[in-house]
């Protein structure tokens, strides 16, 4: 029983959604520095990536290394639409999601027929192919030089004024909004019958098939929804930083996403969020220790994996929550 609570900390979460929303809205106005706000925006973009990856990997049990590819496809879609056709992010953002999803349908119809090591390797190969295309299709992507100058959007509301999303505060709301929609969608799916089918795929594909659960269908749903949001994250990234390059397809992005999911707690809703925030802030704040920074990140990583095999959220479900419940029952008794 205890273990199943770790798998789904929904029941263990006493943070109420209105409270969380209020905190998120208040954050940019409590006097954070621009740097801190920047880290929050980057965290939000990584929340989109880690939550959507958790749908594929945590719930569906498919160790996909292709997530960075869909992130990059989304970023390039948005960038190219802006550079070539002057389409703003309002067109680029949905387009990035849709192009990534279509790419996922195409490659998924090949990849998702294989499992285990073979799936891992094919997904890795796909990122590498995308990187090589970004490097070599110079006419389109300008190769290693990348695409600079992708502007953030501006909205003009008659009678109110204009909101320029080049401001960090404005973009913060955009990124957090995107993250919220992504988390909501993932939560909705995993707690629906489609989510049951994903668990069947992860736990025992043959048994699932024998009771009518198509492994391929469920793998495809997770893969395509995941890719859609990775594309959205890519578009946000492109319009936030203003620059995309083939480096987006680097293996280090894939590893970062994987670490966030695993350390936070795969197959939980909260885990990837915690993981994304922790592993955005931690490496930055460890800059004080200069050259020992990455060593320390490694130590923290190792310690967390050993102490919490099911992710940081286990800290809550295994220790804090029982302590909290004990305290409350003592209050009731008194």
């Amino acid at each position, binding site marked *: *029983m205890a273990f199943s609570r770790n798998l789904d900390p929904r029941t263990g979460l006493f943070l109420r959604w209105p409270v969380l929303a209020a905190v998120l809205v208040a954050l940019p106005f409590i006097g954070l520095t621009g740097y801190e706000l920047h880290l929050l925006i980057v965290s939000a973009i990584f929340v989109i990536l880690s939550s959507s990856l958790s749908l594929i990997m945590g719930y569906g049990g498919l160790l996909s290394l292709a997530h960075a590819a869909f992130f990059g496809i989304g970023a390039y879609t948005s960038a190219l639409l802006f550079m070539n056709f002057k389409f703003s992010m309002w067109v680029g953002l949905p387009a990035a999601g849709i192009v990534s999803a279509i790419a996922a349908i195409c490659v998924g119809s090949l990849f998702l027929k294989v499992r285990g090591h073979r799936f891992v390797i094919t997904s890795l190969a796909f990122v590498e192919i995308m990187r090589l295309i970004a490097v070599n299709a110079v006419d389109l992507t300008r190769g290693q030089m990348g695409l600079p100058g992708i502007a953030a959007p501006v909205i003009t509301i008659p009678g109110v004024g204009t909101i320029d999303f080049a401001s960090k505060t404005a973009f913060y709301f955009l990124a957090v909004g995107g993250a919220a929609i992504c988390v909501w969608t993932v939560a909705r799916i995993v707690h629906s*019958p*489609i989510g049951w*089918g994903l*668990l069947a795929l992860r*736990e025992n594909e043959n048994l699932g*098939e*024998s009771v009518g*659960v198509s492994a391929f269908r469920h793998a495809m749903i997770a893969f395509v929804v995941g890719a859609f949001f990775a594309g959205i994250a890519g578009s946000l990234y492109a319009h936030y930083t203003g620059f995309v390059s083939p480096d987006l397809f680097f293996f280090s992005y894939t590893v970062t996403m994987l670490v966030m999911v695993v350390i936070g707690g795969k197959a939980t809703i909260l885990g990837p969020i915690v993981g994304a925030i922790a592993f955005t802030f931690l490496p930055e704040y460890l800059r004080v220790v200069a050259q020992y920074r990455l060593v320390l990140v490694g130590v923290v990583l190792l310690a967390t994996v050993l102490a919490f095999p099911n992710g940081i959220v286990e800290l809550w479900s295994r220790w804090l929550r029982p302590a909290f419940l004990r305290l409350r029952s003592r209050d009731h008794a008194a």
Partner: protein
Amino acid sequence: MLLDVDNIFMNFGGIAALKGISFSVPEGQVVSVIGPNGAGKTTLFNIVTGFQKPTAGQVRFAGSVVTGLLPHRIAKHGLIRTFQKTEVFPALTVMECVRIGLLNNFQPSLFSVLTGKAEVAAFVKNSVLEVADILEMVGLHSKSEYLAQELSYGEQRLLEIAVGLAARPRLLLLDEPSSGLNAEESSRFSTLVRRLQKQKITIVLVEHNMNVVMGVSDQIVVVHHGEKIAEGTPEAVSQNRDVIKAYLGREWVTDAVG
């Protein structure tokens, strides 16, 4: 006939595992497929449920040809199996495992999940009661919050049947369901089979436990070296010379049958 297995051949490389097996299962009956180890019983099961493609031959279920369909397609017809080596969803609770079986009856589209269609909510709500009923029937209701991997071996076998029942089978193929069960568990299992039969579920059993086979079967099909050597009621089959020879060897035939 609910199930028609028609002249099935299966070759693995040069080895002929099945050499033209045919038999039929009438609706509402319990049919056992027996035979010594390596006779081809599990291969036959895998072919009927789509996990393997036969070299030749045809499987018909409720009038339609199901040979070569994917397992989840065959399951949709109401042809559900269990596995020889017990299969469960290890890290899920008993309740969550059985709930997956319900997906055979209804699978919402992504669109209806995201837009919160009422039919999805109704299905999820009903699933709680339906799972509780099934767990009650197999006797696992007190374990619904346990993880499947925490159950004893015998309980896992019952859980696997519960998952199959959730899929609302018209025909349930059970592959050695009582292997590894103790005497008390296997008599409980026989009771369960009779209850399923009362609910108009047709059952095909692959089984070694002769107490179970003789106790519950209407018909028995005997397979040996990939061929059907006998077929009939439990009484007829237990007197059959070829069957005794296959199980006990030639020298026993005269002693046993005379």
